[in-house]
């Protein structure tokens, strides 16, 4: 049986409130707060990017895994904000962790689901016994165009998972992927900000794929919503995960522990993986967890995990996700946020 042997989360300290963004654009903050269930989002500092956050999260995952980084045979970084268009993030991460040179690395991109893609690949290489341990990271410093609806949610964060076959903290019972060609969100080369299809990102995109993957994996595993203690859906805003959960027959109490978006924003490739780190932080032996990611373009990856007793030994070896989210926050005004996010151009 293969599964998770270590996990780690990273969330930058900086936050900006919905009101602060709405104030600048003359927008209606209460409608974003009520309509999208968003309150604030994380913001990376100027010296943080997908790679630095991936390093932070991965070091925490290695602590919980208790392994020698040189035993990691594969390193995958899923992101839509890799710092370089050409030059891998994975090599920097692997080097920083001390996993080089005998390691396979790749950078992945699939809008908000690149993180779970890496998890899928690393897990299956372990299952195939091609590698002993595999590291997968979902990390993003995503950007929404100034004034666009996405600016209220596009946030920064990273989650890292190490897969192996021994000393598991969660066993993988099933995986399932659901993919179609659905252009709901995109960014072409040389474009700074992504574009999206507005309401088209809802029913034919997020809901179709999340439901397709969730129903598919439950059918494959012969399980039903009530069999799970926790469920994590991709969290582009506060509303979608609850609505899709209700459509599938899950209860609010199953969703809430991994629902971080109202205070975190949408961390894109880190979104559902961070929901899972928050859930593992509180899970007990035997708990069944379903996670369903979503990436525009479009597709969903689903995993079913069963938590083992080892969770109690490792959860306090690194910071808990909720602590990263709730403590030590630094609120920015829009001016500093704009500087941090390089929305202000200085003279050469």
């Amino acid at each position, binding site marked *: 049986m293969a599964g998770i042997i270590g996990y780690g989360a990273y969330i930058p300290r900086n936050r900006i409130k919905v009101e602060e963004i709405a104030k600048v654009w003359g927008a*209606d903050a209460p*409608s974003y707060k009520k*309509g999208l269930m968003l309150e604030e989002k994380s913001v990376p500092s100027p010296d943080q990017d997908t790679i630095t956050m991936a390093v932070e999260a991965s070091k925490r995952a290695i602590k919980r895994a208790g392994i020698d980084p040189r035993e990691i045979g594969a390193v995958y970084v899923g992101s839509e904000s890799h710092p370089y268009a050409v030059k891998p993030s994975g090599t920097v991460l692997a080097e920083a962790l001390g996993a080089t040179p005998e390691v396979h690395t790749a950078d992945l991109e699939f809008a908000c689901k690149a993180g779970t893609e890496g998890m899928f690949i690393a897990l299956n290489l372990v299952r195939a016994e091609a590698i002993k341990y595999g590291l997968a990271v979902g990390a993003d410093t995503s950007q929404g165009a100034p004034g666009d609806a996405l600016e209220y949610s596009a946030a920064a964060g990273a989650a890292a998972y190490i897969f192996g076959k021994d000393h598991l903290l969660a066993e993988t019972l099933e995986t399932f992927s659901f993919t179609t060609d659905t252009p709901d969100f995109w960014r072409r080369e040389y474009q700074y900000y992504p574009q999206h*299809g*507005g*309401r*088209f990102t809802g*029913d*034919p995109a997020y809901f179709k794929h999340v439901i397709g993957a969730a129903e598919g994996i439950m059918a494959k595993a012969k399980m039903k919503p009530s069999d799970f203690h926790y469920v994590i859906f991709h969290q582009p805003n506060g509303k979608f995960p609850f609505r899709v959960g209700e459509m599938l027959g899950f209860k609010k109490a199953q969703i809430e522990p991994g629902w971080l978006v109202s205070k975190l924003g949408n961390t894109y490739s880190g979104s559902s993986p961070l929901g899972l780190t928050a859930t593992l932080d509180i899970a007990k032996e035997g708990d069944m967890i379903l996670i369903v990611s979503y990436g525009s373009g479009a597709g969903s990856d689903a995993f079913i995990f069963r938590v083992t007793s080892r969770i109690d030994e490792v959860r306090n070896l690194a910071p808990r996700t909720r602590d990263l989210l709730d403590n030590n926050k630094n609120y920015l005004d829009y001016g500093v946020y704009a500087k941090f996010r390089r929305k202000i151009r200085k003279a050469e």
Partner: protein
Amino acid sequence: MRDVAIIGVGMTKWGELWEKSLRSIFVESALLAIEDAGVDRIDSMVVGCMSSGLFIGQEHLSSLLSDYLGQNPVPASRVESACSSGGLALRQGFIEVASGMSDIVLVGGVEKMTDVTGCEATFALGTAADQEYESYHGLTFPGLYAMMAVAHMHKYGTTREQLAMVAVKNHDNGSKNPLAQFPFKITVEAVLSSVLVADPLRILDCSPITDGAAAVVLCPADKAKAFKKPFVRITGTGQATDTIALSSRNDIAWLESTHIAGSKALAMAGRKIGDIDLFEVHDCFTIAEIMITEALGLVPKGQGGKAVAEGLTARNGKFPVNASGGLKAKGHPVGATGVAQAVEIVKQLRGEAGERQIKSAKRGLAQNMGGTGGSAVVHVFEAE
């Protein structure tokens, strides 16, 4: 001039029809109308569409649609008069049959609006305003109607709640229309707490962006009897223009083009407003319906807000307005709206409107307008 009858109607479900193209939604409705009429050919067709060029990059629409309907080489024309394109198509079809030029004419309306972003849709709709005197200064339709609303409230004491009641009434009606985009009820509180778009108008005061089509089949009334089905006569048609720019009007709290078109249509039909049993009107914004009820003479000037509050325009009121759900709940695919109004009235006069049926309705009136009233088309329909 020959008398003209509607012998068939067709309409499919409206909404965000992302899986369908303009041509397919048009053909679906047109085929339903042809089937309903029981005709084996059409002699000509007229299509109302406001802006297929901006919405889907397609012009030369009339030939394209006659091709996809399998009707080449019949003559086909597209007419455009902003949001009254559908009503104008019906009037052109009427003229063609009345004049004796054609016997069986298909009149369709269509708009595919959700294949572009909200900004692009707002721009396309904005082309119905005066580019030099309105659009260039940043005005969009919610802004223009908001100014009309403010003027009406200031002049006549129309209240924010009365505006909301128009939306509540039309959603109540729309909840009984399975083809409506938003077939559900809303409350006054929901309207008042919805997102502000252009003060005082909130999102639930505004008709939506919609994909949809509707079609009717016309023929000379003396030939309609041969089809052995209940048919509906178009006994009056009226059309009028006004300045496109709101700033050029004498009174922005009054819809002169609707007043003139309505008076002409009623005069042609030999009817008074009190003879009409139901109305389908152009409630693109809640204030529009209030002003239309005044312009048509259902109520005196300035009394439209009070009328909706008192239930005069409710489904069981003296003058039922927008039993279909109106543009607000049924949706507003701009070019299709005027034709869909005729579809609703025909269904009502044939007693086929289901739960929203107006009892013993014999005569109906449809009012369709473009922009802020720069154009208006009114038709009077009577059951045979």
